[in-house]
């Protein structure tokens, strides 16, 4: 595989697209071919299943390019494959059904295990090791962060500020906007203005706002400072003024996420039966009362989902800080800081991992809530 990727790297960029897609297509075709043939009865198919079960794991190990000192992995993989073949002979769904299931699931599960599960566990371990990864240091990485080392404490506090402010404001404005334009003429067009930033990258949004906040000597070219000047004030170097700069960066996230909230909430509002609003109106409820007593209870689940989604997004924010202040003047967050620490020379892996773990702990309640929801849904089915 290494050789293939290295060869691919020598080609012009655009030529690499069809080749990688073709190579991947061949792999998928082989898997589908096997899935189709696996459950068939007959001696020939049994032999095929045995060959595939033993051969494919061994081939995967070989393709990944194992060094000479770990060749024993090849027979090990083959033996494990053989075990799978034996298990499959007694599978509940009939011979071949287990191998077929493996064919469906293995690519995704392998990629998930390598790409998300293993790294997460590794990061948690690294958080308790020294920066060079050699010694166990207990909680001292965390102590270092909490003591303010590498701006860790500032980053933690900022992260919490982000996750408190951004989701509430974005959801509130999104909800207000959705209600304001509901059933108004030109609703479709009004939606586009607020929704469009959702498609713009955080990097793009950051530069758009960096220009909006721009400060310079003499004539101002940033609109915000020009407005200050028009009202007779002195221009401010916004992004260097702590703690205001933090709030101004949060504005970028709110700007980009409000459209998402608006679209979700608007769809939910359309789902409220018209009769409820009419009944409330006949009872003499004014617009605000109708909003409080009919609309909000009707879309409460959507409000929660929206809030959680944006909260998770604000725990992961990296781009906005990277493209504007780069964490200077007390604007760093854990999600930004941990990447920077890792990019230091030499990398501060221990501290960086400790911050990643803190971030993970902050996100854990959302994860549990979501998992619980989905569990209820699936048991309900």
């Amino acid at each position: 595989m290494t050789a293939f990727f290295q060869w691919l790297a020598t080609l012009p960029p655009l030529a690499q697209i069809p080749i990688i897609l073709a190579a991947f297509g061949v792999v998928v075709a082989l898997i589908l071919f096997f899935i189709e043939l696996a459950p068939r009865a007959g001696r020939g198919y049994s032999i095929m299943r045995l060959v595939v079960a033993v051969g494919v794991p061994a081939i995967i190990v070989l393709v990944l390019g194992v060094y000479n000192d770990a060749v024993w992995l090849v027979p090990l993989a083959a033996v494990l494959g053989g075990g799978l073949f034996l298990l499959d002979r007694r599978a509940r769904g009939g011979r071949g059904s287990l191998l077929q299931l493996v064919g469906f699931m293995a690519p995704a599960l392998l990629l998930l295990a390598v790409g998300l599960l293993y790294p997460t566990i590794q990061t948690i371990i690294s958080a308790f090791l020294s920066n060079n990864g050699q010694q166990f240091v207990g909680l001292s990485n965390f102590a270092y962060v909490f003591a303010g080392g590498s701006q860790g404490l500032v980053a933690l506090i900022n992260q919490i500020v982000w996750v408190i402010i951004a989701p509430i404001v974005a959801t509130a404005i999104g909800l207000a906007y959705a209600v304001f334009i509901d059933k108004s003429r030109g609703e479709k067009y009004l939606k586009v203005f607020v929704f469009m930033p959702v498609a713009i990258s955080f990097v793009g949004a950051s530069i758009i706002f960096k220009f909006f906040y721009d400060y310079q000597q003499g004539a101002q070219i940033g609109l915000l400072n020009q407005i200050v000047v028009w009202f007779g004030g002195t221009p401010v170097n916004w992004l260097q003024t702590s703690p205001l700069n933090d709030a101004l960066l949060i504005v970028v996230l709110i700007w980009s996420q409000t459209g998402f909230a608006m679209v979700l909430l608007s769809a939910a509002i359309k789902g409220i039966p018209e009769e409820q609003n009419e009944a409330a109106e006949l009872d003499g409820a004014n617009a605000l009362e109708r909003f409080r007593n009919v609309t909000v209870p009707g879309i409460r689940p959507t409000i929660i989902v929206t809030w959680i989604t944006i909260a998770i997004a604000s725990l992961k924010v990296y781009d906005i800080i990277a493209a504007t202040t780069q964490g200077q003047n007390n604007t760093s967050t854990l999600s930004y800081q941990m990447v920077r620490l890792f990019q230091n020379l030499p990398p501060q892996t221990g501290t960086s991992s400790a911050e990643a773990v803190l971030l993970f702990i902050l996100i854990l309640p959302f994860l549990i809530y979501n998992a619980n929801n989905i569990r209820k849904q699936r048991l309900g089915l």
Partner: protein
Amino acid sequence: MIATDIDPRSARRVERATRRAESAAFNDSKKRLSSKGATIAAIVIAVFWTIPTFGLLVTSFRQPADINTSGWWTFFAHPDLTIQNYTNTLNFTDTITVGQSFVNSLVIVIPATLIPIAVALLAAYAFAWVDFRGKNLLFIAVFSLQVVPLQVALVPLLSLFSNGITIGGWAVFPGLNLNGLDGSFGRIWLAHTMFALPLAIFLLHNFISALPVDIMEAARIDGASHGQIFFRIVLPLARPAIASFAILQFLWVWNDLLVATIFTSGGNFPITKLLTDLSGTYGTTWYLLSAGTFLAIIAPLIVFFSLQRFFVRGLLAGATKG
């Protein structure tokens, strides 16, 4: 002759009157539901949401000399358009030219959108229509991975790609050996594929599992295998869900900075990464940043405006990723 002359006219008159009456009734019902104040508030929000983008857009078409000396709002008093900023920016070299980084973004985004779809479809089908023990638990685990911040996974994954795994002195996996290979996109394709899977499986599964049971059972009774059902029934019917996810993933990968920062180097920087670097080094060179920003957001905006329906559908189906 007379009849044909008068009839259409009176018919038109009646038509016009009905239309007027209808629209009056319609406006009445509207007045009850949305007040003037609400509309004004909405317009204020819409204006605030648009002004910053509009300002930079105007700036990107101004003469470079004007940009740093006067505000973009003065442009309307002295209009002086140019597309020079765009041509200059496309050829501007940092580590590579902005034009090259645009191509790199394309090279990254196409495989990184298509590959996870194929892998996720297989798994989503099995989660929906193949019975096996521990299915629910496994599905919840996959779904939960969606929330894991990429920051937690990046460092070990990079080390896995470059140094491999060594257990007890044995190099179990030697790594991909792609470090410093400027032309290679292998690592970022793999990383994006892996990170996309939880959301992809979740969205596609939700759709595939909602397909009517009757169709599946009929197909089974007719002797169709899982392979045939997957190909002949699920793939064609799941097309809208595939389109929705493809758009989300396209936008996500094109707009991504974090994964690109870790898994690309010099020669294969995508445009977001190059733009971030430019913003750091040439923070006040606005002709460059303004044109660069619009070059970077043009592809997502085209996708957004042409395929908004699918995009909204994807968002509504539950999008929590990153």
